[in-house]
């Protein structure tokens, strides 16, 4: 099934070309740590890890935003809460206490990641249930506001670091692997990313995905065939929150640090930038977008402290003058089929 199956159905051949591209991409990602070792640039492995983590977050956002048409400006809330799940569980574990008097701490990835998914989903259920009663401009503002509210909450929680954040001395453990090692952690993130992208691919092509795409295109028509949009939008929003929470948990592990910065509205903006840079509503777009922004930021920050003055115009030009972001660009260059 093609990647942009949602928007360009039943299109003919060059799917072999696409499949080869994707195989190359997969192989490249697996081989990356060894390639960069050979090139003498081991620092690129942590960079690639960051790209993968953001790709997971951006892809999850893309489900709600690109496929579902819900412009959420508050996804930092889910990213941050995923991070804090890891942080709080770790702190509780180290202090040998009980969170809220009930929940024991842990340093196990197999627990913290599902926990982050669960909490991310619950938070999305809460925020989504309220926000999806509105649409358009209001929805954007409301999601932004709720995320900001969460930001203020965590800034005020001195017990968990407040404004300064919490350090997480050791990354979560997984089957006795050395998660501290860059390459090991890279592969863990790669595995998670692969699972997430696979899941999203299945969701998008499923009956649920069809309904979601239909709602994005014309809610009135969907109601007219007997489908009530709200519950499907909420479901997509919740799934999106789950994935973003998962990414946040990985990020907290990667940085061995969590702070309210992960909840700040500019983080939401960054995620949206990744989605649009990569191409809204495509499956692999978020990966390219995350790579583009992370690499761009890394390069620019080494050039000048006023790097945002360069990023700003670039972003502006991309938004105003390109259609379909990087994914669209690749397609136009003949590396795939053309987009909607």
């Amino acid at each position, binding site marked *: 099934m093609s990647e942009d199956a949602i928007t360009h159905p*039943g299109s003919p051949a060059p799917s072999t070309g696409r499949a080869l591209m994707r195989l190359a991409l997969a192989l490249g990602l697996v081989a990356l740590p060894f390639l960069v070792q050979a090139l003498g640039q081991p620092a690129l492995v942590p960079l690639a890890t960051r790209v993968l983590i953001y790709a997971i977050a951006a892809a999850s956002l893309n489900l709600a935003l690109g496929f579902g048409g819900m412009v959420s400006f508050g996804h930092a809330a889910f990213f941050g809460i995923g991070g804090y799940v890891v942080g709080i569980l770790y702190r509780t574990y180290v202090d040998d206490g009980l969170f809220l008097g009930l929940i024991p701490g842990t340093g196990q990835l197999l627990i913290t990641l599902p926990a982050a998914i669960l909490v991310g989903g619950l938070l999305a259920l809460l925020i989504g249930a309220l926000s999806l009663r509105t649409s358009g401009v209001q929805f954007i503002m409301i999601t932004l506001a709720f995320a900001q509210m969460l930001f203020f909450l965590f800034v005020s929680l001195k017990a968990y670091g407040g404004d300064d954040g919490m350090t997480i001395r050791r990354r979560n453990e997984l089957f006795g692997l050395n998660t501290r090692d860059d390459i090991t952690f890279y592969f863990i993130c790669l595995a998670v990313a692969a699972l997430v992208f696979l899941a999203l691919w299945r969701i998008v092509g499923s009956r649920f995905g069809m309904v979601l795409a239909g709602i994005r295109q014309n809610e009135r028509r969907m109601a007219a065939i007997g489908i009530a949009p709200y519950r499907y939008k909420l479901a997509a929003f919740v799934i999106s929150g789950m994935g973003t929470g998962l990414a946040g948990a990985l990020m907290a592990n990667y940085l061995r640090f969590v702070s309210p910065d992960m909840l700040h509205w500019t983080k939401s903006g960054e995620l949206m930038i990744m989605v649009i840079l990569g191409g809204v509503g495509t499956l692999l777009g978020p990966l390219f977008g995350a790579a583009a922004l992370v690499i761009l930021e890394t390069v620019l920050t080494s050039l000048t402290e006023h790097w945002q003055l360069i990023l700003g115009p670039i972003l502006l030009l991309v938004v105003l003058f390109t259609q379909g972001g990087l994914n669209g660009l690749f397609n136009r260059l003949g590396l795939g089929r053309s987009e909607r």
Partner: protein
Amino acid sequence: MTKPLLSVRGLRKRFGGLIATDNVDLDVVEGEIHALIGPNGAGKTTLLTQLFGELSHDEGEIRLEGEPIDALATPQRVQRGLARTFQINQLLPDFSMLDNVALAVQARQGHSFRFLGDARRDKSLRQRAREHLTAAGLAHRAEVKVADLSHGEQKQLEFAIALACEPRLLLLDEPMAGLGHAESEQMVAMLSGLKGRVTMLLVEHDMDAVFALADRISVLVYGRIIATGTAQEIRDNEDVRTAYLGDGDA
């Protein structure tokens, strides 16, 4: 007389000072094609929109098969057996004809919280959708994206989607609007072919089509039904003549 399929009593709707629907009583009998005609601005589309649940009425009662549906939102009314075509096409522009109809088929099969399986390869959906398209004479264009269709084809697709909902009562809002002569004839033929099998409430301006198809006609003027009857009765009705010819269009 058997209980009507659709029964409307005392329907009222006002927008500020404007009375759009003025104490409308209407019955649609099962199996009939019931036309709703009237001058421009009479409130025909507004009436349909209220019946469909997209607009809430201020007063009155709407019953489908004897059961009140006033409190139901549009999706629930569709699940109870209503369907509608829109004057301004409401289609899914990025999808193909087949996708559009398949979604209606999918909706008919129950909830869509199914996250596994490839919907585009689901025989139960695609096959059924193709059948509907074939019945509408559109099968040869099944894979074409809606945005690439002609106006006439889009109108036909509207109709096919509505039929795919397997409705008890079909509300048609000017299905001939914007169609050329040949396409109009096609549409009339299609509607004619469904006579007796699908109950329809048809809003139309094309009088030839109306008189060719309708079992009964109701005339709406300034939000009020001024006459209901067979084609002949309506043609002979004084009030109707005045409304159309005497005072001119609203």
